[in-house]
């Protein structure tokens, strides 16, 4: 009823057309245009992707060839905090690499590229708005994120090295300034960086939520929103509800470190037999509860927008409506609801009350359900479609197939008795890389190639795209699948070499094989980065709708003007009306009037 009423609704309250600033600073640096801020996020997070990937390469070198000089850059790194006098990665350097690789990838790459780049670029376009609800706040989000990133990196260069307590930074290791190298200033910088990036995340979540609730174009009902935007909406809720908890954890730990409080320090603690001088009375388990109360939902922040991107790509290139649109939306909200009550599964072996372990096991088993249902729906979307194997589609299909593996391997870890053995082994590393790399990053690559014409007015090079996908898909599996086997054999994560252990020496060949594949995988990403920047200037000029897609942004030219839409669009139907059988083409834009042929509903 209301849908039809809105079909002919009247100019949105937002008909004011913003004027593009002409000054260099306002246009390119402190821009408040969501598209430009999205691109700023994109380029910045790709820079950090190279940094985080580089750290991973150093780790892989050390794991394959322990205590050997790092090739090429070994001499440069000699006697640094990462490498020893021979230019080989030192044990404390390895801990820093582990910590910073995880933190950079999670806080500076995946979340910013999903939410900052795609959220910024797509949300206003998908709901038919001229900008986000709070454009200046939006710019502020970016300008909190960028310095946070540099504070992270600066952590390597202060005191006696970077933060080295893992991205989870469990106290007392992270809490006591003398517990290991890098635990003093490096750790404080890390905490401050996370605090800032968390703040940026909270502001972004608030902004996007308001935009989606308040700035939808006439006719853009909740059930006509593309799933990308739905995913961003659920993610924004997550960010708004969970990130403040992370910020509080960072504050408490900073107070411990800087002002000698004891939130996470029990009585009578000593490092090398020397009393810490703290009053004590706190508890390290408290940190784990607070940290994972944020960081488990954060895992879903890392995957939900990827699910959204893949949904759009799979529907577009199957030339079929998404199967079970409403079920998809319900699944995402289900993931959010359950996502808040599963954090304890990170703590099964921490000494937490085992009865809580049983409860968390059951909730964790259940959260597999909405993800599973989504996978079935994606496969059903492909079913009886007319699948076009474009480069973005190959990435979307990779997302789906790899996410299935990442999801299924989670079942072992959810099962508490089995988790006793695989907890803190490479099994866990394999699992979350299948989700975050195999899932999210493939969706990101697909999404970037897909929306690149809308961002820069040119197409990305197809041949380079195919080469990049093929290399990435194969080497990704060669890197991360054997890690399941390493975990099954009992190889601990976060150790700088497995060679110390008799029972792990026979499988060292697997570490060597993984590392060599990882080097090819890392190199392949440079092809993508090259393609991206080369195509910005030299790519084939794009038409307005090169992929024959339905959502609002494709109705305009590529790239879109500063104000997005000359006239605020009126939405007539859902986002995935492909192959309706009416008219000559197999797609109908969301803002095409009903008389042009096509169904009015969604």
């Amino acid at each position: 009823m209301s849908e039809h009423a809105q079909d002919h609704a009247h100019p949105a309250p937002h008909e004011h057309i913003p004027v593009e600033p002409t000054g260099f600073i306002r246009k390119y640096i402190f821009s408040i245009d969501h598209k430009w801020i999205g691109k700023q996020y994109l380029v910045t997070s790709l820079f950090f992707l190279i940094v985080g990937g580089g750290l991973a390469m150093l780790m892989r070198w050390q794991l394959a060839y322990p205590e050997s000089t790092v090739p090429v850059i070994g001499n440069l790194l000699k006697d640094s905090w990462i490498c020893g006098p021979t230019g080989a990665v030192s044990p404390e350097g390895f801990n820093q690499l582990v910590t910073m690789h995880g933190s950079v990838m999670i806080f500076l790459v995946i979340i910013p590229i999903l939410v900052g780049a795609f959220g910024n670029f797509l949300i206003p376009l998908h709901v038919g708005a001229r900008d986000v609800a709070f454009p200046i706040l939006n710019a502020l989000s970016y300008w909190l994120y960028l310095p946070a990133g540099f504070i992270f990196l600066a952590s390597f260069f202060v005191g006696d090295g970077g933060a080295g307590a893992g991205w989870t930074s469990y106290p007392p290791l992270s809490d006591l300034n003398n517990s290991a190298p890098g635990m003093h200033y490096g750790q404080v910088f890390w905490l401050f960086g996370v605090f800032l990036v968390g703040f940026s995340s909270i502001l972004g979540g608030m902004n996007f939520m308001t935009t989606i609730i308040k700035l939808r174009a006439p006719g853009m009902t909740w059930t006509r929103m593309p799933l990308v935007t739905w995913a961003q909406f659920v993610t924004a809720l997550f960010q708004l509800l969970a990130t403040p908890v992370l910020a509080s954890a960072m504050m408490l730990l900073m107070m411990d470190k800087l002002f000698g409080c004891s939130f996470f320090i029990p009585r009578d603690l000593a490092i090398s037999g020397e009393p810490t001088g703290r009053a004590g009375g706190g508890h390290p388990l408290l940190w784990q509860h607070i940290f994972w109360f944020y960081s488990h939902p954060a895992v879903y922040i890392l995957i939900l927008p990827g699910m959204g991107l893949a949904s759009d790509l799979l529907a577009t290139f199957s030339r079929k409506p998404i199967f079970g649109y409403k079920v998809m939306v319900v699944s995402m909200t289900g993931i959010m609801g359950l996502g808040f009550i599963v954090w304890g599964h990170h703590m099964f072996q921490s000494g937490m009350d085992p009865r809580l372990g049983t409860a968390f096991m059951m909730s964790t088993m259940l959260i597999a359900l909405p993800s599973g249902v989504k996978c079935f729906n994606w496969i059903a979307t492909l079913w009886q479609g007319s699948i076009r194997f474009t480069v973005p589609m190959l990435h979307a299909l990779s997302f789906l197939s790899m996410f299935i593996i990442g999801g299924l391997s989670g079942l072992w870890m959810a099962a508490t008795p089995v988790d006793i053995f695989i907890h803190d082994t490479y099994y866990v590393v394999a699992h979350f890389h299948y989700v975050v790399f195999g899932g999210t990053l493939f969706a990101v690559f697909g999404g970037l190639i897909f929306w690149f014409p809308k961002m820069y007015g040119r197409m990305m090079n197809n041949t380079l795209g195919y080469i990049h996908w093929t290399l990435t898909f194969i080497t990704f599996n060669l890197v991360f699948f054997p890690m399941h086997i390493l975990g099954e054999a009992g190889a601990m994560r976060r150790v700088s070499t497995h060679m110390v252990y008799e029972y792990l020496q026979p499988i060292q060949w697997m570490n060597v094989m993984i590392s060599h594949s990882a080097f090819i995988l890392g190199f392949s990403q440079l092809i993508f980065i090259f393609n991206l920047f080369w195509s910005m200037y030299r790519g084939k000029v794009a038409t307005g709708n090169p992929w024959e897609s339905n959502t609002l942004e494709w109705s305009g030219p590529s790239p879109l003007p500063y104000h997005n839409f000359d006239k605020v669009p009126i939405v007539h139907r859902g986002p995935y009306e492909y192959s309706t059988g009416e008219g000559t083409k197999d797609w109908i834009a969301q803002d095409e009037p009903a008389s042009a042929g096509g169904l009015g509903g969604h």
Partner: protein
Amino acid sequence: MKGSAKLLIPLAAAAFLLFAALPAAAIPNWLPQNVNSAYGEKVDGLYFGIYIIVAAFFFLTEGLLLFACIAFRARPGHKAKYLHGSNVIEVIWTVIPALILIGIGIAQADTWTEIRLKFPSESNPDVTVIQTFPKQYEWHFRYAGVDKQFGTADDVYTTSIHVPIGKKVLNKLASSDVIHSYFVPHARVKLDAMPGMLGRTWYTMDKFSVWDLKAGKMLIVSAEELAGKKTAWAITNSPTRTAFAYKLVEASTDAPDAAIKKGMKKYSYEVLPAERKTAQVWYQGKIQEVPIGEVDYVFHRYEIACAELCGMQHFNMRSFVYVDPPEVFAAWYSGVSEQAAKTGAPETTTSRWKLNWDKAHPTWNKAIE
């Protein structure tokens, strides 16, 4: 675009087949051999139970995906079907997986309870209680000694542990600095040692780790399999000082052999002293003296690892469990206890054991047996 799309179908198919072949590579059992007879089999059983369910879902979903990619590829004359979904199908693929997931959860619960909530009683003389006190980056252990009382003169302080075969072992864990995690892969045991909190974990090890002198490698054998073999002791694991016959040699090799990477260690046992003619061995259930040439095995060890990032030397925080025949364990236990009573514990060590181990248990951690 059209031409390359055709090329891509075999490419995509090959890629998908590649990863379909990878799980097949995982089928051989890579788990370390299970030596925990208390609940190890159950844990491994659950592991492989989930494996079967996961494999079924993996081949179902990826198979359908692969089939869809081939059967529904864009080609001239082929049109997509306009379809929004089906509530019946949605209900089916929600309810069935939900039941399976809840079933998996329920199947785990009893084993979890058995491992983590039902502890052997400390007053049972057959239970070996070991207080475990990791610090950066060492493992420290304490036995109560012959008097079964902790905090007395005959307490035994060690940096690796001996346990009797087939008897319950109870490890009580606490840390004085950062979080460490007690991980015995072969026994399927892992629990964090948390500062300010006591943890308990228990297990029964029912297989010996021995070094086969002829084959030059570690074997895991049951008591029956060991009965016919003459097994000697090495300097690190002897029941009494006079019984040492061998010394473990860890040689780091930098050989450019592709199979042996830098840092990989080669292990061997050397006779100690070299001119030794006879050795004490465990043979047919007794300690006997045999000529050195007749020795088959040397008692070897299982490794203990730290599984929680604990600082700089975390990767190197290793210790050992020696599984002893019951009589040998009893001899070792009374021997080291008497020795401790005579010499007293080193001053530097005792300061770490001030914790009140008995009163500090959280309520859930009570023995139920």
